[in-house]
């Protein structure tokens, strides 16, 4: 039988070390909503999402109460809207009307983010894909909780540089469209290479076409728990360090698996995956950078950081994989800047640059995430940064992503505050040497040689 020490350990993780389930995300297929009539399509989308998810928030709250574990977010991901709207949408405004429907239904069911205002264009763009991408600035400035993502490359297909160029421009236009709000529209837009179909985390979640009609995916968290565990093994060797991370990740993930199974049963929706990602928040003690510090670097960004992050990521996966029957999504450590107090401190101390972050993305789960850059950054420069990050994903057969926020009217060294989970942080400086000729070539970068495995 469970003993008092085990109960205390679990409850200390929850009460003092910020252990929580970061999100229960219901994936909903909208393929059966498709109609060539825009009004019918919008009505179908509203009814399908409302009917599927009306009990999601209450169920999440019930589970949180019964197990005594906070479930921070309840969210929805849907089939990429470029596919769903292709038959009905003839203009960017038509796509924006779908964004508004998504925003309304999301608010009506009480969730805090809905992902899937997305297009998958890793090899080419249909007319609908292009329209959706061009509608993003308008869609994100006229809605509150809709998140958008575009997959512009993969190991199998190479990188669609036309889309990369277009997105540099779309990011700047989104920043302009939301400039009264510190360009916060860009916090809801992610550009991916090798985007997973079952990611529960925002802003990049969408419900892939390979998925079932509805599915429950869960993202766990617990940087604070890992950090506290590591405090107890200060000065020990790498074997003990790695074992400690692995055991802690196992415990954290078991909670996610339990919550996922329970939510799936109560909602009558199949369980998809648990995403093992260590996801930080701006709360003190809930930081991935603090773990890196505990492993032994003065600040994230110091020499040794990439190796420390690599081992952290690998041990989290090893421990987590044992704890869940299905692992998926992004599953690694997130290194967003504005959402992680330790990262913010590292930037302010001068220890962490955009280039070092890029190196770190080679060994962790996502990419250049939640990085505020000067508002006058050229769109081609943003495209160049995206291309670099996509190349890392393509060549290393991993997911990479870019979520940059050019904050209109601010320059390097200023600070920006997006509020809540999105956090705040310094504007990071960007290398301003030109890549115009590279970005403007047009076309696509071919798939790498190691993609030809057949």
């Amino acid at each position, binding site marked *: *039988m*469970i*003993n*008092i020490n*085990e*109960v*205390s*350990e*679990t*409850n200390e993780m929850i009460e003092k070390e910020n252990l929580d389930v970061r999100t229960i995300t219901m994936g909903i297929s909208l393929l059966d909503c498709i109609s060539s009539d825009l009004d019918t399509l919008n009505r179908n989308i509203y009814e399908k999402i409302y009917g599927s998810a009306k009990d999601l928030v209450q169920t999440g709250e019930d589970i949180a*109460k*019964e*197990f*005594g*574990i906070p479930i921070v977010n309840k969210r929805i991901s849907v089939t990429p809207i470029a596919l769903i709207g292709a038959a009905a949408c003839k203009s960017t405004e038509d796509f924006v009307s779908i964004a508004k429907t998504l925003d309304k239904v999301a608010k009506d069911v009480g969730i805090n983010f809905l992902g899937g205002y997305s297009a998958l264009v890793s090899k080419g763009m249909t007319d609908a894909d292009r329209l959706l991408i061009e509608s993003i600035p308008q869609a994100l400035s006229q809605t509150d909780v809709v998140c958008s993502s575009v997959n512009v490359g993969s190991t199998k297909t190479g990188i669609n540089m036309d889309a990369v160029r277009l997105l540099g421009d779309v990011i700047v236009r989104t920043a302009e469209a939301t400039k009264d709000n510190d360009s916060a529209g860009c916090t809801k837009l992610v550009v991916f290479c090798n985007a997973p179909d079952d990611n529960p985390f925002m802003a990049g979640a969408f419900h892939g076409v390979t998925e079932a009609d509805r599915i429950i995916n869960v993202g766990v968290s617990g940087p604070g728990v890992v950090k506290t565990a590591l405090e107890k093994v200060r000065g020990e060797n790498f074997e003990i360090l790695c074992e400690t991370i692995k055991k802690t990740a196992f*415990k954290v993930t*078991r*909670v996610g*698996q*339990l919550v996922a199974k*329970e939510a799936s049963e109560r909602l009558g929706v199949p369980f998809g995956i648990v995403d093992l990602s260590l996801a930080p928040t701006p709360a003190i003690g809930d930081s991935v950078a603090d773990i890196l510090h505990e492993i032994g670097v003065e600040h994230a960004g110091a020499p040794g950081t990439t190796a420390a992050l690599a081992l952290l990521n690998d041990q989290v996966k090893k421990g987590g994989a044992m704890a869940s029957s299905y692992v998926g999504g992004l599953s690694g450590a997130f290194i967003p800047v504005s959402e992680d107090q330790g990262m913010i401190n590292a930037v302010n101390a001068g220890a962490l640059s955009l280039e070092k972050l890029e190196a770190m993305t080679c060994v962790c789960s996502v990419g250049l995430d939640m990085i505020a850059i000067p508002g006058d950054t050229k769109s081609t420069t943003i495209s160049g940064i995206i291309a670099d990050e996509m190349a890392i994903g393509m060549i290393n057969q991993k997911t990479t992503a870019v979520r940059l926020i050019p904050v209109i009217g601010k320059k390097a060294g200023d600070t920006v505050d997006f509020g809540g989970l999105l956090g705040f942080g310094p504007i990071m400086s960007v290398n301003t040497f030109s890549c115009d000729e590279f970005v403007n070539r047009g076309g696509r970068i071919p798939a790498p040689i190691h993609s030809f495995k057949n």
Partner: protein
Amino acid sequence: MNKIIITVVGKDTVGIIARVCTFLAENSINILDISQTIVSGYFNMMMIVDVSKSEASFQEVSDTLDKIGEDIGVVIKCQREEIFDSMHRI
């Protein structure tokens, strides 16, 4: 069997266990195990109880224990056993 873990943490005072146990008995909730320690003056108790014979819902049990806790100045928490089982047992 439907097991709930009740934890009580707070300043030690007379009658904490009596209050909690009386409530449990009145609601046909059977106590399977109790452990208790005092850590630096703070009362720390854990009970494993079986609620399968009780007619009260989890929510009612949890809310009432919350109130009892407030009355006697301690924090009483109810959690289903599965969260501890999943974390500490393979």
